[in-house]
């Protein structure tokens, strides 16, 4: 089991009648970037708190770096860095002072800590403002300082809870790039929780989809979409003029074998198929006398996975 740096088994957390995390099993390998994806209130933060021993699970076990986080939280926290979603710093202290304080709490000798702090500040692009009070920092700067703060103790695992919340798109990109870069260079395992699909898709090796306290699926993104959309791995979007109703289009396409669903949204028909039927569909539409204005074969992204799970209900619902 040594290749797994984080392993959760049957992890459950109840707040009275509410079950925040429900029998969660999850294993994360060393060096990978894992995305924990779920809507707000899915229990992501609670899971993370349990990993750090900041709250006790109702049942089940958490192992981080082979250490039981509930029994030995201090040892876990020595090896794991945690960046909360809204990280706070001592506002009347400079960025550097804040980092040095964290270093002291980790018992890093002053000289080494100072050197590391400067390096990290440089790395996250805050070198110029190292001596400015943190209350003058912007949201993005705080978040980057937070990353430096997590890294100063030289962790094996970093756990980031919604790290990109409230940063502008460019900032998000830079921030995520920085995380990936650090993870690759220093072989740090990263657990990233988010409800931003694209960001997770951009950086994560593997993704776990977490809804209502349960892990619905996990795997890399191609595997996930295969698993989730087993019946209809292809979606073909077609724009047709003049707009027929779904039933009419269905009669047009009824001869083609392999079409599973047809639904209409935002001016386009989305046709779910078992095989790649792009050309057959195009032919059928054109032959029926309708004008084909748009035709695109889509592969699944996290968006679709997300919709599928969070907005609930099968795609077939709207099929006429």
């Amino acid at each position, binding site marked *: 089991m040594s290749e797994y740096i984080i392993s959760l088994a049957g992890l459950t957390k109840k707040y009275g009648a509410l079950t925040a995390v429900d029998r969660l099993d999850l294993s994360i390998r060393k060096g990978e970037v894992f995305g924990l994806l779920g809507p707000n209130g899915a229990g992501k933060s609670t899971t993370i708190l349990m990993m*750090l021993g900041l709250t006790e699970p109702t049942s089940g076990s958490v192992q981080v770096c082979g250490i039981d986080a509930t029994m030995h939280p201090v040892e876990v*926290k020595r090896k794991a860095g945690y960046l*909360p979603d809204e990280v706070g710093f001592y506002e009347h202290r400079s960025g550097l002072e804040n980092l040095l304080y*964290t270093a*002291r709490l980790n018992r890093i000798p002053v000289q080494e800590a*100072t050197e590391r702090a400067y390096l990290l500040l440089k790395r996250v692009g805050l070198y110029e403002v190292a001596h400015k009070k943190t209350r003058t920092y912007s949201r993005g700067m705080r978040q980057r300082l937070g990353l430096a703060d997590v*890294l100063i*103790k030289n962790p094996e695992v970093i756990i980031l809870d919604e790290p990109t919340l409230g940063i502008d798109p460019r900032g998000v990109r830079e921030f995520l790039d920085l995380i990936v870069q650090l993870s690759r260079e220093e072989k740090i395992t990263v657990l990233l929780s988010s409800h931003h699909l694209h960001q997770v898709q951009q950086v994560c090796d593997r993704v776990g989809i977490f809804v209502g306290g349960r892990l619905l699926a996990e795997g890399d993104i191609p595997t996930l979409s295969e698993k989730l959309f087993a019946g209809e791995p292809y979606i073909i979007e077609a724009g047709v003029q003049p707009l027929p109703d779904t039933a009419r289009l269905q009669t047009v396409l009824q001869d083609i074998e392999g079409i599973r669903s047809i639904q209409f949204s935002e001016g386009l028909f989305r046709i779910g198929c078992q095989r790649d039927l792009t050309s057959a569909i195009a032919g059928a539409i054109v032959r029926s006398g309708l004008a084909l204005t748009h035709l695109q074969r889509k592969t699944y992204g996290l968006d679709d996975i997300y919709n599928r799970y969070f907005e609930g209900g099968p795609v077939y619902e709207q099929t006429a």
Partner: protein
Amino acid sequence: MIFITATLKEDLSMNRLLNIVALLKAPPAATGRAPHPFRAIVDKEVSDHLRSWRFNILLVLILLTCFGSLYISVTNIGKAVKPDDPDGAFFFLKLFTASDGTLPPFHVLIGFLGPLLGISLGFDAINSEQNGGTLSRIMAQPIHRDYLINGKFVASLIVISVLFFALGFLVMGLGLIIIGVPPTAGEFLRIIFFILLNILYVAFWLNLSILFSVLLRQAATSALAGIAVWLFFTIFYQIIIKLVAKALMPSEMASGQAVLHYQELILNLFRIVPSQLFSDATTTLLMPSVRSLGPLTMEQVYGAIPSPLPLGQSLLIVWPQLTGLIASTVVCFALSYFSFMKREIRPR
């Protein structure tokens, strides 16, 4: 630090970059040289207090009262010593107690300002960390959870102790220069105990306000709660007890025993209040002639010579008061410790 800044400002060559990568990869060095994290917390908290406006304003306030009362006591010290005064031998202690009524003496002023100091040092101990988002960050460091609350308490206690010892010695030193009479060993010890008592008293209010800071989310609410308790005890509680006393007043025909019981009951009701405990204890310590804090029967007083008590006896008289103060301090601390340890640390 300046040296490092200077070197880092130099252009980073490839070699340097490699060094940096090597350094980043290196695990933190052996923990031998770095101080214990608890030290780090205490250091930071002490320096936070000293840098804060809040503490400095209170410091100025306390210094002003201190000098004010010193001035009053020095100008009145001549009148304060009467020929038949049993405390006459304790001339130096008069520095802390003498007054002409325009400004209360030192120990009363401290009794008044001490709670304010305690409350102001503790009311945002935990909730400001929570609201600032620093609590979850600090708790994610490899420290035990109680380090934070203990560290904050110890840091405030250090600040208070240093402040009171400095003040006490300052008053002593200035008094020495002005009146030119050195304190006896007994007087000196009494003053030391008086200072320790002050620290204990402020520590009680400190713990109470730390408790509020754990229980209440908003710093303003917690400060207000602390001040409310303080005001209640200093003003309203007295009124309530006086009302109760009137209601319970035994008739004129009542036996001496009943009157005594009544007196003791009322006194004990007053003594629920920490400020009463404090003022009882300080009075006894600073006025060696005080023999009892409760009513004395004629039999007890009969034949007694109005003479000062030795320090040990004075301490014995205030022992219940001291125990009460220590107990309430410990209770407050235990409650805040318990509720902090049970609490789930969520980010903001």
